[in-house]
């Protein structure tokens, strides 16, 4: 990082050796394939570097590398990639699409792989299927209210610090880095962030315990591993979601188990 980029710095380029996971489809076996790219501007983003590689492959009649991406400004959560073994390359608070080549050096070798997790099967090359996240949200990641029945927005006062903590958790972009970083392939940070967003707000209270149970069981059913407190997820999260959200989940989950036993029915919101 500099205060003001100089002209010489602006023109700096890199030559790189890339080892990339290629896999034609879900059923086929994959392997690492080595490529070289030259003249990559240090101001290009990581995905633009892959664009340059793909143009080079197309010119040679080779199929380009498939990778997920969309907004390219760090908010849609589509891009992924294990870069040198770290989700999104390991730069704090940075998605792959916002990773710029200035952090690399001329002549570097870079290993690029898809997310590795049982619940995220590879579709092709670097693209994985993350629909398990959607299935978890469909089981409880909402407030049950139909359009049209809302009271005036200012009838519901929310203390500023509660709103801020809800917002901290709601910043999750669903990219899956937490799962990819976890040695167990657990989705605890994702699920806990979704829950904490709603549970720091009054709107989330009526369904709080039921929501916690429903989403945790959906997470288990989707094939994610268990959390064993490594906190690799927190370190990998590009939106810096705190592991505190998982403590909130665990408290609510324990409470839900107790309440549901007591009533012998699914709890429906005594939060």
């Amino acid at each position, binding site marked *: 990082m500099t205060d*003001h980029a100089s002209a010489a710095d602006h023109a700096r380029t890199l030559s790189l050796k890339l080892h990339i996971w290629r896999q034609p489809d879900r059923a086929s076996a994959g392997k690492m394939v080595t490529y070289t790219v030259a003249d*990559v501007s240090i101001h290009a983003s990581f995905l633009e570097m892959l664009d340059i590689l793909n143009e080079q492959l197309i010119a040679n009649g080779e199929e*380009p590398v498939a990778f997920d991406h969309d907004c390219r400004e*760090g908010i*849609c959560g589509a891009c992924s990639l294990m870069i040198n073994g770290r989700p999104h390359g390991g730069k704090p608070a940075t998605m792959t699409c916002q990773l710029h080549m200035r952090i690399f050096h001329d002549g570097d070798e870079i290993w690029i792989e898809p997310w590795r997790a049982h619940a995220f099967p590879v579709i092709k090359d670097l693209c994985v299927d993350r629909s398990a996240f959607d299935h978890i*949200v469909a089981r409880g990641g*909402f407030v049950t209210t139909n359009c049209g029945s809302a009271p005036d927005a*200012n009838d*519901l006062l929310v203390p500023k610090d509660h709103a801020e903590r809800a917002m901290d958790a709601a910043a999750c972009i669903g990219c899956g880095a937490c799962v990819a970083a976890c040695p167990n392939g657990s989705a605890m940070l994702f699920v806990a962030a979704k829950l904490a967003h709603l549970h720091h707000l009054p709107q989330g209270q009526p369904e709080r315990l039921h929501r916690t149970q429903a989403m945790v069981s959906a997470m288990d059913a989707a094939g994610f591993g268990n959390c064993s407190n490594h906190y690799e997820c927190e370190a990998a999260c590009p939106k810096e979601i705190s592991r505190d959200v998982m403590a909130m989940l665990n408290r609510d989950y324990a409470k839900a188990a107790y309440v549901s036993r007591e009533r012998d029915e699914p709890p429906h919101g005594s939060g």
Partner: protein
Amino acid sequence: MTLKLYPRTPSGPIEQQWSNARFEMKLVNPANKRKYKVIVIGSGLAGGAAAATLAELGYDVACFCFQDSPRRAHSIAAQGGINAAKNYQNDGDSVHRLFYDTVKGGDFRARESNVHRLAEVSVDIIDQCVAMGVPFAREYGGTLANRSFGGAQVSRTFYARGQTGQQLLLGVYAALSRQIGAGKVKMFPRTEMLDVVVDPGTGRAAGVVIRDLVTGAVTSYAAHAVILATGGYGNAFYLSTNAKGSNITATYRAYKRGAGFANPCFTQIHPTCIPVAGDYQSKLTLMSESLRNDGRVWVPKSKDDVAKHPDQIPDDARDYYLERKYPSFGNLSPRDIASRAAKDQCDEGRGVGPGGRGVYLDFRDALRRDGFDKVREKYGNLFDMYERITGENPYKVPMRIYPAVHYTMGGLWVDYHLQTTIPGLFCLGEANFSDHGANRLGASALMQGLADGYLIIPYTLGHYLAGVAAKDLADAGGAAFQAAEAGVTARLDKLVGVRGKRSVDSFHKELGHLLWESCGMARSKASLTHALDEIPRLRDEFWRDVTVLGGTGSFNQSLENAGRVADYLEFAELMCKDALVREESCGGHFRTEHQIDGEAKRDDERFCHVAVWEHAGDGNEPIRNIEPLAFENVKLATRSYK
């Protein structure tokens, strides 16, 4: 003129039109709703909200999106906020003022009745979003916080840090997920709509042809109504703030099936984006307009100073040109005006940064006045984003910004019911043309998407379906569908069959550059005529020399992209034609021949209308139809922000 353009403006004074219209609309019996199939294409604020709300009402909904999850639709990238006429700040806002600002901001090229309804329902949107758990910014007392936003003199913008779009979309996604979980919405991620099917007997929309992007399978789906909510076409310019996947295919395919396309030349260039750094650039990143509340825009007064470090340029050698030219709005001038002003400074040789295509957005005074912590609290995430992309620290040196293509006001023509010229085919959000005229005000896109999806289509679609028998569902195996599927398949085969030498991206970049130079911030007869000569040449070359590797029957990102670029290569011509015929300057459409002292000169005598283009068959000139616009509630006037 052959299209029947009946806007269906309701009766009565404008304040009563929406309630009159709702009362006059027919209803579908609750027990019958599940017998009606509705297809929604797109899962952003408009499409996702429509799919969720229609399912809540009981309709049988299928929703398609090209992303791997509905949560990733490009609405997510909106940073600054959403407008609503709540007047929570007691600063003189009202439904009428929001209506007035939007009509005026759109430079009198929007339909009054639609805009008034938008302003009316804006207040309900905020209520709805809060009930769903959207974590809007709050004051210490727990009430909602507001800020002012580009082009407005009242604080009516609600926000969630710099990620209002994501939080609103997550609200929509949550509501949609609830319906998916309940089995009321069938969701099809990683799919793309490649054709609309119109029943040849009735002329009504009967369904769609979809390609599964993972397997490559092409399949027909029949429905009683089809809703397109597929966003804008800013990516025609290659470089834009849109997501890479955003495309015009759905609305362009509908146009080719008979839906009128309105005002394609109305495109918005956003003034505050990070400048282009090199020819490898794949997209441009917006810096939220909210930054203009505290940042001051300037360039050096003298050309000789442009290469100097900004700290070495004293205040009296700086030209705060927006404050100078527009003293009452200053740095908050509307987007089209601020963009052109930036271009003018750079054209004069006073631009800064690589290539001289940039102006400073400086927070020095805000940092001195409010301190680091306050500035960080308001804009921290945007400053961090800027630093990640440029490697420069905006707390220490001013940001460099330049205008970039951001939004498209043009889109499929719709009536007051949001129905296109094809009965049963509706169009919502950025994909339609209706509310923003020739220029959209900041924080109004999110408002329109949610208004259309949550609060308008649930009524107007019901009225349409009440006139259709549930048993009249088209047969997805019928002749019209088979013909459409065959057309889709043939086109896919043709794309992979060319086996030329040039990549899809190389064509897209060339088209984008051509459009930016000839149909961008400034347009002239000469530039547009040039573009209209070049586009067909480029299109021919594309179909002769493009290379798309891989097959049609599997996951193939080059093929997806090729289809989209092929559509842009046709649509670009329509855009330039529209810009050429509209011999006036209004909003984002600036014809260099029509200006007074550098400001846009409208021609209300000749162009106070919507231009609605009608496809007349491949190889034939499209037909320009007109919907006249009447301004009965906001007096036609020259916009002035001085």
